[in-house]
């Protein structure tokens, strides 16, 4: 019981963090057709910026300033980089953001070095909020959850209550509808790209101190975020939400089970010989499969339902 409740809460925290990343990515992809490979790099930059700012001005300032800076950076990337390669098509745009991701990682190595930063949860949030059964539940996780739910609500209101938002949302499923934005299209693209990047930055600010702030954080989380939008369905926000929570739940719960195929066979009273085929396969424990699960899920999804959970449009 204890395990389930705690794991469920943790899944929710991690899942909403994933959604904060994947929602920006999905918005950008849905509207502009651009897959921003550097999205996770903006997340990483968010954490690094937050660390740097909080050295001078404290965590709360960083929480506001860092995402804004990342947003501006994203807008600049759209304005001066993506627009230049736009005429060469989406693959060229993807390549450009790939190059950008590569460069951001190298620049982070250049400026902050190879080792993980000592980016800490602020002391004002560093206490236990409640004890569930035997374990403590830190308040910071609740704070992360609150922020991401807040962002979720704001995003929802923006997309359903403002004119621009409604058009943006409509153009996720009907890209030709972007034309309805009239002469504003380039500016809206910049806005969406900047906004999506800012969300990634924010995820970095609140995720960096909870997980880890190191030059590999983009590589560790990036592919999972990409898989989220494949599983959710390219361009679907709802799909991204479901897939984020699903993957977070899978990964969180997997940690708690140390069963392997041998145990499963034992249930049926089957015993393997001393030298079975693929000796490793039978010994793999569920708790070690965490890193594998998102990708396995993607493959299964591609075979059963290539459009993704909520995907409607063909890409």
């Amino acid at each position, binding site marked *: 019981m204890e395990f389930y409740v705690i794991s469920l809460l943790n899944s929710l925290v991690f899942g909403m963090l994933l959604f904060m990343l994947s929602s920006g990515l999905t918005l950008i992809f849905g509207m502009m057709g651009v897959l921003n490979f550097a999205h996770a790099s903006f997340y990483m930059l968010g954490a690094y910026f937050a660390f740097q700012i909080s050295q001078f001005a404290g965590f709360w300032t960083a929480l506001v300033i860092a995402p804004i800076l990342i947003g501006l950076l994203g807008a600049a990337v759209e304005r001066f980089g993506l627009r230049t390669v736009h005429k060469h098509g989406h693959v060229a745009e993807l390549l450009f953001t790939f190059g950008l991701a590569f460069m951001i990682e190298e620049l982070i190595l250049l400026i902050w070095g190879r080792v993980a930063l000592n980016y800490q949860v602020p002391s004002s949030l560093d206490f236990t909020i409640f004890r569930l059964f035997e374990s403590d539940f830190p308040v910071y996780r609740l704070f992360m959850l609150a922020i991401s739910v807040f962002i979720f609500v704001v995003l929802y209101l923006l997309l359903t209550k403002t004119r621009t938002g409604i058009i943006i949302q409509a153009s996720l499923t009907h890209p030709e509808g972007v034309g309805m934005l009239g002469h504003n299209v380039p500016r809206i693209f910049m806005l969406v790209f900047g906004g999506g990047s800012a969300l990634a930055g924010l995820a970095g600010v609140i995720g960096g101190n909870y997980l880890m702030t190191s030059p590999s954080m983009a590589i560790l989380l990036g592919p999972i975020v990409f*898989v989220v939008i494949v599983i959710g369905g390219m361009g679907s926000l709802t799909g991204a939400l479901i897939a984020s929570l699903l993957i977070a739940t899978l990964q969180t719960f997997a940690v708690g089970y140390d069963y392997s195929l041998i145990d499963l066979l034992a249930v049926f009273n089957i015993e393997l010989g001393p030298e079975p085929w693929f000796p490793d396969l039978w010994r793999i424990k569920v708790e070690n499969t965490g*890193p594998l699960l998102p990708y396995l899920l993607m493959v299964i999804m591609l075979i059963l339902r290539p459009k993704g959970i909520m995907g409607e449009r063909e890409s």
Partner: protein
Amino acid sequence: MLKRYGVWIAAALILVILPQIFDSGFAITMLSEMCIAIIFALSYNMLLGQGGMLSFGHAVFYGFGGFISIHAINVVNDGGVPIPLELIPLVGGLAGFIFAIPLGYISTKKAGTTFALISLGLVELVVACVLLFPSFFGGEEGVSGDRMLEFSLTGVGFGSGIEVFYLIAFWLIVTSALMYLQTQTPLGRMANAVRDNPERAPFVGYNIHLVRFFQFSLSGFFAGIAGGLLAINYEIVNSEMIGAAASGHVLLMTYIGGVGHFFGPILGAILYTFLHLTLVNITMAGQIYLGVLFIVIILWAPNGMAGIIMVHRPLWQAGLIRGLLPHYLVALAAGLVVFFGAMILVEINYHLSLSIEPDNPIRLFGVEFKANSWPPWIVSIGLILVGFFLLRPIMKNIRLKWDELTREMQKGKFA
């Protein structure tokens, strides 16, 4: 006859002669790596250049080719099956091919962005498996083997690097000829057609999924051969070979070389391998320079080095290229100013963030200075700005001159 096979004969001759001239251990290593990289990059271009499939996971097939080859070598040494070393790369190729079949089948249903994403997911899937299947991947340290097999077709023992180089060179010639010929087959041509217009291709009778799938599988075959050769060359294979980073390298080298022409990836592989191996010894910031090169190419020369060469061909043939040379030299000079500025900046930063003793002075071009003092910063930023302002009018001049020469050339054509 000579026209048709001339290039190939010349290439073979060069491959025979090169290791005789550059015969140091380092040179042989570099030449071998270059040849392997060429095969790998050409196989990658079967996807990207020919088929319009941007893959972030091509190293999976390269890696599987490597792992299966090293396992095959070990099996041969254990007296399992008698395979001569010369044919081990073929085992790697088959491994790449067989793995490409299921992975290709699910990923080639879509092209473009979705394909790219899926390729990334698949490479991560394989990487996640590395730790779960230690008896195949050998865990952290990898799998090693002894390439000096009992069986040999040629009687060569392959104890020395140069013998191995000639084996690699042989496979380079064979595979690149095959890959070149493949571009001339119905499948190769339809891969181009599907790349250009996947919407129309079904209406001339082709299942675009299958066109991509077959193209993908063949590409996996050649990547596997490259992987097998790497296994032979180093006698050890580890998970580095199979991951996203290795896939990124082949993407970079292919794109820098140019995806629009068959010889582009060859240029790219040579340059990239050269820079990679030399920069590692000179500076800690090697990757940054390669990254900058890649971004510059994406922004301003989307057809890569091969594209740059090919746009000059008409002018060259018309004998007008000389008019451009002075302008290019000036541009090069200005470009170098920017580059030196940026380089100093990068190097002092690396020194400050990564070296063990940041307070120790740093040496660049024989000049010794302290990285955490302000003069180098001013000098480098100044150089960047000056070079940048110089470059703008120079580039404009080049464009003007270019237009002038093109007009002259066209006049010449009709006169």
